[in-house]
């Protein structure tokens, strides 16, 4: 009983721990912090096992919206109910939000200077390259490309070329692409 207790007792973070745990996640990554969330939750603080993490992440990735914010809500709720579900995402976003607003103030003050404009153009060019690379990697990871890649083309045509409103493109795309997926799943 005594030993079993020791083994089974997992750290149960309080609100303060949730806030600072997710703050560290929010401030540690550039261009996406999900891998840092995993490291903090599973490896560093051991609030959950890798299996638990994957199971909880499932719904966060299934639903739209910022995955890591969704994840903070889930983890916060799990340990501290509604208060946790509010404190965790606030902790995640507060630090980065303050930094980004500080940068916005600098931009307001100096953004019109030619050197600032040049610098931002350079960063935008790199960001653009990172996006193309990300799209390429995501495209490569698709299963059944012959069936599903056409829907990527459909999305680019609708959004980037024809400039259709995205909600409609997504609803139509999801019905068609999800329909094909449903049919393919039935055949296996």
């Amino acid at each position, binding site marked *: 009983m005594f030993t079993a207790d020791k083994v089974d007792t997992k750290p149960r973070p309080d609100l303060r721990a949730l806030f600072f745990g997710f703050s560290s996640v929010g401030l540690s990554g550039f*261009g996406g912090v999900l891998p840092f969330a995993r490291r903090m939750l599973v490896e560093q603080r051991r609030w959950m096992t890798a299996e638990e993490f994957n199971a909880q992440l499932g719904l966060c990735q299934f639903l739209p919206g910022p995955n890591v914010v969704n994840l903070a809500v889930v983890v916060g709720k799990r340990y501290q109910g509604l208060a946790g579900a509010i404190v965790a995402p606030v902790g995640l976003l507060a630090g980065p939000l303050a930094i980004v607003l500080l940068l916005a103030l600098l931009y307001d003050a100096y*953004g019109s200077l030619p050197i600032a404009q040049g610098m931002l153009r350079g960063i935008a060019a790199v960001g653009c390259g990172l996006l193309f690379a990300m799209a390429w990697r995501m495209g490569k990871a698709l299963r059944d490309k012959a069936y599903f890649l056409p829907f990527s083309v459909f999305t680019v045509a609708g959004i980037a070329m024809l400039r259709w409103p995205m909600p409609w493109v997504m609803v139509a795309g999801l019905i068609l692409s999800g329909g094909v997926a449903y049919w393919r799943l039935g055949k296996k």
Partner: protein
Amino acid sequence: MTVVELFLEFALLSFVAFGGATALLPEMHRVVVENHHWLDETTFTHLYAIAQAAPGPNVLVVTLIGWKVAGLAGALAATLAMCLPMSVVIYLLIDRWEGFAGARWQKAISLGVAPLAVGLVFSGATLIAQAAGLAWGGALLVLLTVVISLRSKLNPLWLIALGALLGLAGWV
């Protein structure tokens, strides 16, 4: 009034943000630059660049757009609009997730969304490429970034620093 409009527009978008805020770039551009003329093309690109260079989740580009449109209230409204609706949904759904995880329709949606997200991210990239007003050097830098990013595990931060330097030198 603008703050309310901003909140409603972005809250609507949060329901189709498969792939996170990155996937929303083209639509945010449409809403903010083309429909409402709240920002011009150059400012939009600059805000994207600032978000790239700052630590934190990708969703912060939304905060910056909100800031430029309507100050602090706009920044908070836009961020909240992007995060709150799905947070509520996920708060209510998580306890039932075990019940429908792995069901055929759930898998079909996950599989079906993936190619759309690819298309959205690609569209975002083409949008930034067009809006950034890049010279030849800039186009080359985009290409170089793609190659390095796909071929090596270099931390993107180094590439961002390189971009800033080349931009400062006036080569982009």
